């Protein structure tokens, strides 16, 4: 069979049925490539596999060598032991960790529980507010209104805390008046 566009033999045959109408396309190697159609390749399968494995293991190898600047452990060491070296590892390996955490935590990708409330703590509140605002926008866009309401509440309480701590003693606990009774 010849190519639909030239006289060369067709190597790609595509059959599609749309609205009950059958459509056949036959393309030569050059025209198939041009059309972006998946090509049967002349490469032997083992060569293909080797390339595939190499490209992945090269990537995995590079990831495994990635190092946390604070404590010096590599991602490979974490994969072996299951424990990270320091809190900064979460940032250093964020890209590699995110899918692992998602799997281990039943699909969760973000914290939703309590956060430290201490004024003057090391928590970067402006950063937290920016982050939460971004999440709020995303939640609204995705029509996750329940989640959006919770994020809005957290932002409001952060605002209150910020303005409260601005006038208060930075070393003093600025709890939100949450019941601490035994």
């Amino acid at each position, binding site marked *: 069979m010849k190519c639909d566009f030239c006289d060369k033999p067709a190597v790609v045959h595509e059959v599609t049925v749309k609205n009950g109408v059958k459509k056949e396309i036959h393309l030569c190697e050059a025209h198939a490539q041009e059309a972006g159609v998946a090509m049967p390749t002349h490469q032997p399968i083992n060569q293909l596999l080797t390339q595939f494995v190499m490209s992945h293991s090269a990537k995995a190898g590079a990831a495994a060598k990635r190092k946390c600047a604070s404590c010096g452990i590599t991602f490979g060491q974490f994969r072996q032991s299951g424990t990270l070296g320091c809190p900064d590892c*979460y940032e250093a390996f964020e890209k590699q960790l995110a899918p692992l955490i998602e799997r281990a935590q039943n699909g969760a990708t973000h914290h939703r529980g309590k956060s430290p409330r201490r004024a003057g703590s090391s928590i970067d509140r402006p950063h937290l507010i920016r982050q939460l605002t971004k999440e709020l926008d995303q939640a609204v866009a995705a029509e996750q209104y329940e989640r959006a309401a919770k994020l809005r509440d957290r932002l409001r309480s952060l605002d209150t805390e910020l303005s409260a701590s601005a006038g208060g003693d930075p070393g003093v606990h600025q709890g939100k008046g949450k019941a601490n009774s035994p």
Partner: protein
Amino acid sequence: MEFASQGPWLSNDGPESDVVMSCRVRLARNVAGFPFVVRASDAQRRELVQLARQVVLESNLSKEMIWVDLAEATARDRQLLVERHLISRHLAEADIPRAVAVSNDETLSIMINEEDHLRMQLIAPGLRLDDLVQRIDAVDEALEAKVDYAFSPRWGYLTACPTNLGTGIRLSVMMHLPALKLSNEIERVRRAAKDLHLAVRGYYGEGSESAGDFYQISNQVTLGRSEQEILQEFLERILPQIIEYEHQARRMLVERNATLLDDRVHRSLAVLRNARLLGAEEAMKLLSRVRLGVHLRRVDGVDIDLINRLLLQIQPAHLQLHVGADLAADRLREVRATVVRKALA
């Protein structure tokens, strides 16, 4: 080391106590500016112990806190703390600077240099998780007022192992499921628990066997849900199901297999009352069956609190404390049998 005669979580007055022996909540926290325990130097670990000691003792968490430097404590004392569920086996056996603070009523313990810098836990008899979650939150806030925790807006409280990330909260209940075990339905619970992302462990937590039909069930997911959401799911969706499974299995035993049930219960009691040598595992199994019998009113004159207490007193370090000496395995079995025989006479 001195303790009141029994762990306070062993009393039988908690809600659902026929199935739920005790419940526990723990929070994992790390101090900002330090590597995690496994990566820290011994000097840093010592610094963390010192810091924690100061913070814990200043925080007025309980009328009285007992501070135990575990690197200095004897092996028997460390084992005693494990048997009372106040420290983990991991912490008892680690060979690094480490400590534990225990409230004098033994409900609160704060482990220092376990897998995370701080692991605080509260334990209570029966099912009172909502109360414990509220109380541990107050403990957390008291400590947090004096120390900066490692925290990220995206990941929450940062923990050495990502499986504790986020809230760092672990809710556990110690369940007594002898009827499900007798009717071979315990696997159903295990499967259901797995589907619900729960861990089912043995009597001493991670890596331990389910001695005497006691199973510790705890949440696995710590990220993406608030503490309250995790608690509500556990309390409303998960626990009532398992408790109902066990109750059903108990009813079935009474209705269809009363003779088998009575045989198991009375045979167990007879062995406990007459044996001259008793292994720990055997004793747990027999006590478990008698406990079932008492709850189903198949035996008279056996006090449930006594059975609960014996479950603790037959453990190796408690027996050694009782006789005031370290004992070889053979002698331990003999002493165990004597203690049980006298208690049940």
